């Protein structure tokens, strides 16, 4: 039985259907396992033997839970964070006599770490609970203050003050939503255009693929950046800015999917089951939707899972090059937080060295470590998972 030996999985019906006895060879209708469910089970079996993939999955689930819980908990004084850098004379905890920082304060706040700062100077204050965060943030010595995971201060770019912990929790929903929506939309467009190009062939194929080539030959980061730089000024509200960001990334993302899908469709199109379907009178939309698309989906899915992780990196890159998703206001996005932390570091270190000639400067390690670690963990766990998925989906790689 040559065909049964290729199909050794016990969950699948292993009988060899011949001629008119097809229905007789199959198990009774009620007990027949759905082949797609069976395949899912098999995929999970191979995935669960891959430790790295499981670690990746666990980290992603954790991030997902953080995102969902912060979404359920609601915006946390968004878009104004509850922590604001203030400038003025400190009148003790609980008073509201602060003046928002207006550029007259220096980057370096040199006041004793326990006492009130001399006037005028800058310190972090929790707007809703002023007594909670005492102004012990001595930036000259880069003490992280009482906040979990420390804080991130961006004075030169619009007086932003990030609590890294809050940024992580609130940024989870934004980062995940932005990444997933970009990649899924890009993949859907790619699926549509790629299957059209691959199935129809001819002039349509030529046209779609040439346009794809054009988009693929512009470096992705630059195309996003140029689009944002050109269109950015005409988008002002937060939903618009986020929408613009997502849109600019989709412009970059669809071509690679189109190319992948087309390649896969070209292979799938020639399979016997497609031919059989066509012979039994199915029309093009049915063949494409029922046979070709489901069977050319898995490379798309692998690529998609890989790409989700790289979006925060690219958003960070864009922020690092100077494009702010939402300028002058607190916008927690993991990539952007990491980029801001890196961007302000040289200035901080230089100022610190100039300012404190007597006492040595401490290195603001938490500003680099925590936002960077979040982005890194997200990207690498996505990579682990998609590598595991690739192995689980592709029979040739299993062994």
């Amino acid at each position: 039985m040559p065909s049964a030996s290729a199909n050794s999985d016990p969950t699948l019906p292993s009988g060899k259907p011949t001629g008119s006895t097809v229905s007789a060879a199959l198990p009774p209708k009620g007990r027949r396992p759905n082949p797609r469910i069976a395949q899912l089970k098999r995929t999970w079996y191979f995935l669960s033997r891959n430790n790295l993939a499981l670690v990746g999955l666990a980290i992603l689930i954790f991030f997902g839970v953080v995102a969902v819980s912060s979404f359920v908990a609601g915006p946390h004084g968004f878009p104004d964070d509850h922590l604001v850098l203030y400038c003025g004379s400190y009148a003790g905890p609980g008073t509201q006599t602060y003046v928002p920082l207006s550029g007259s304060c220096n980057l370096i706040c040199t006041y004793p770490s326990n006492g009130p700062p001399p006037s005028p100077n800058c310190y972090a204050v929790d707007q809703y609970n002023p007594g909670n965060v005492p102004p012990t943030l001595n930036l000259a010595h880069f003490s992280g203050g009482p906040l979990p995971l420390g804080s991130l201060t961006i004075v030169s770019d619009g007086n932003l003050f990030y609590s890294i912990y809050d940024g992580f929790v609130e940024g989870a929903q934004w980062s995940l939503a932005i990444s997933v929506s970009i990649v899924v939309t890009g993949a859907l467009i790619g699926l549509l255009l790629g299957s059209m190009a691959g199935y129809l062939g001819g002039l349509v194929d030529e046209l779609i693929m040439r346009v794809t080539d054009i988009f693929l030959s512009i470096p992705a980061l630059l195309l996003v950046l140029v689009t944002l730089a050109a269109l950015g000024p005409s988008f002002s509200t937060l939903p618009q800015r986020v929408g613009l960001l997502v849109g600019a990334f989709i412009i970059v993302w669809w071509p690679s999917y189109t190319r992948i899908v087309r390649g896969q469709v070209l292979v799938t199109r020639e399979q016997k089951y497609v031919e059989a379907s066509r012979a039994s009178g199915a029309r093009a939309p049915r063949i494409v939707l029922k046979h070709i698309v489901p069977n050319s989906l898995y490379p798309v899915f692998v690529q998609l899972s890989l790409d989700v992780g790289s979006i925060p990196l690219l958003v960070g890159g864009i922020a690092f090059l100077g494009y702010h998703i939402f300028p002058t206001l607190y916008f927690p996005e993991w990539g952007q937080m990491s980029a801001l932390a890196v961007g302000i570091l040289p200035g901080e270190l230089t100022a610190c060295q100039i300012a404190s000639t007597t006492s040595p400067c401490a290195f603001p390690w938490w500003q680099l470590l925590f936002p960077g670690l979040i982005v890194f963990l997200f990207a690498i766990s996505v990579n682990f998972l998609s590598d595991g998925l690739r192995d689980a989906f592709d029979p040739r790689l299993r062994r």
Partner: protein
Amino acid sequence: MRMWIYIIRRLLLLLPVIIGVMTITFVLVSTLSVDTKLNAYYGPSKFGYAPTVSCSQLGLPGTNCTNPAYARGVKALGLDQPIYIQWLQYMKNSLTLNWGSTEHGSYASTNLIGGSTIPVTTVLSYFLPYTLELAALSLLLILALAIPLGNYSAVYRNRPLDQATRVLSFSGFALPGFLLAILLLLGATVLAGQFAQVCNGQSTPFFEFYGSWPPSGCLPGGQLPSWVGSFGQTSPTGFPTVDAIIHQNWFLAWESVKRQILPAVTIAYGSVAGILRFVRNSMLEVMNLDFIRTARSKGVPESVVVSKHAGRNSLNVTITVLGLTFAGFIGGFAIIELVFHLRGIGLLLAYSILPSPDFGLIFGTTLLFTIIVVAANIIVDILYAYLDPRVRLG
């Protein structure tokens, strides 16, 4: 010769891509407001570029008068023409290297080219060699890492070395370029022992590894030699290290190379991952083919089988992948050049975005980056055809 026909055919296929890229930038350019465009092309005007100005400014009676600068600019740029004429005009300008000029007093112009208004193509020609030198160094590093590591991880599949390269490639994918760059910069600075040096009263952070040249006050002669021109462009070739060697200035040649090592390592670390995986997979495929078994069975030593028989055959795939990853690789240059403050078109792009966008430079650098990518793809195709006769003859 068949090879020439192949090359010419590839070059002809290039034309629609270039036109398409320019059309995309044209669409983006046409979303800009008229006064932004006029500023980018002609620099600031005494009356600004609003359509109307108050007549007292012009010394005329009435309240609202047509702005002469606006009218002249719109007419000269053809902004009153229908859109397809504008598109043709844009194409003509782009193809004749008339890419506009830098904005007077923009951030990029002030900090990198002395605040003057000069044609974008001139600026780019000054900055391009620096980027190309860095690209060459990074490419060298990538190949030197990816090919041996990929081969060995295929030969020693699922052994510790393979696992180690797997971790290396995953972390290369996942670590943001700017973060790795600043970590390397900090590490190297700590190792070098000096964070900032004050030269002529000007403090430079990361003194040893920051910028393409040492700060001029810290040089032996007190300033850069005369072959480094006013905007930092060098003569006669424009490539900094090459020029330093030509002028036999070994100190500056070493400084120039030293400042490119860390950026090249950063770039290589980020892009070696994908290429390494491809080398490994293609090597695995080749290792299972019949001619490898034949070679082994006739007693060829294993090292020769790996390096000569299999290695040579998996090289084709490597070159193809190199071409495909080149777009991603060169796109990261803006970030890396900004962190290390290396002169190059990436730094130019980073400086021209904020705080005041310089659209002439933004679109110029993008077009140039795209041309580099397309050119690299062509070179890769030709190399591929050269290495694999089936491509050009089949």
